[in-house]
């Protein structure tokens, strides 16, 4: 069934309702990945199953549920904003750190080299003075 033939409609209907066993579902999924025709039929079956949900008795959402959702969204948006800000700040510090460290090292070496040069010439001068 799975490799070459289309999925029997019974199985597709059960798949739409997630009423197949795990192994059966996996086999159907494998076929669906390659078969546009069966995917189309599944989409139609899912459209049919969706309206079954409308048959249930309707209840109003619990008191405060809307506000709880909006608060959760606002909190998440705020956390994301802070994360982005921190990342940006991290980048600002990271960039110069990665650039100034080699320069600073070079500068230290240059200063040490100059100091050694000066010390060397002072010692040479001292040696010349002593020998004369």
């Amino acid at each position: 069934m799975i490799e070459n033939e289309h999925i029997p409609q019974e199985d597709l209907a059960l798949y739409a309702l997630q009423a197949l066993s795990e192994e059966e579902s996996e086999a159907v999924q494998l076929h669906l990945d390659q078969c546009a025709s069966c995917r189309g039929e599944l989409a139609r079956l899912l459209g049919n199953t969706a309206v079954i949900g409308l048959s249930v008795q309707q209840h109003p959402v619990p008191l405060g549920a809307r506000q709880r959702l909006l608060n959760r969204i606002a909190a998440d948006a705020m956390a994301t904003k802070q994360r982005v800000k921190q990342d940006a700040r991290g980048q600002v510090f990271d960039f110069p750190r990665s650039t100034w460290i080699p320069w600073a090292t070079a500068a230290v070496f240059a200063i040490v080299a100059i100091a050694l040069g000066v010390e060397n010439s002072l010692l040479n001068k001292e040696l010349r003075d002593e020998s004369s």
Partner: protein
Amino acid sequence: MADVFDRYGGVVYSVALRVLKDKEQAEDVMQDIFFQLWSKPDAFVQGRGSLGAWLLVIARNRAIDRFRRRRATESPDDVVLLSHTNLADESERNILMEKVRVILENLPPEQQKSLQPAYFEGLSHSEISMQTGEPLGTVKTRIRLALIGLRKALAA
């Protein structure tokens, strides 16, 4: 998001409540669905079908996952459905609700007995077969016939 919630919150919550029979858990499912829709709006691709119908499928599937204490069996991105039912308009929705109830009530009792536990309890065909004592093939056929009957009646 507030508008989408106002429009579809009730139907999503009602489906979750019907499956879970627990207000707190049904609200959790509803909150997660709308939060996911906000954080990942691309999961629903316009043009594939109506947002209301898509939310109903996700609500039912999430509620069943929770009811059966299993992890989410699919990502919302994977749910592609073809539905031209307009659930955005409340009066149209109410008419459709009534129509669907009548269609389901008029299905042959044996089809109802196979479809209801599959849809609202997430029972597999083999579980329904064990519960009803009907052969596996019979259960499969009844579920398919119920869905096809529903499709035809809706189109009529």
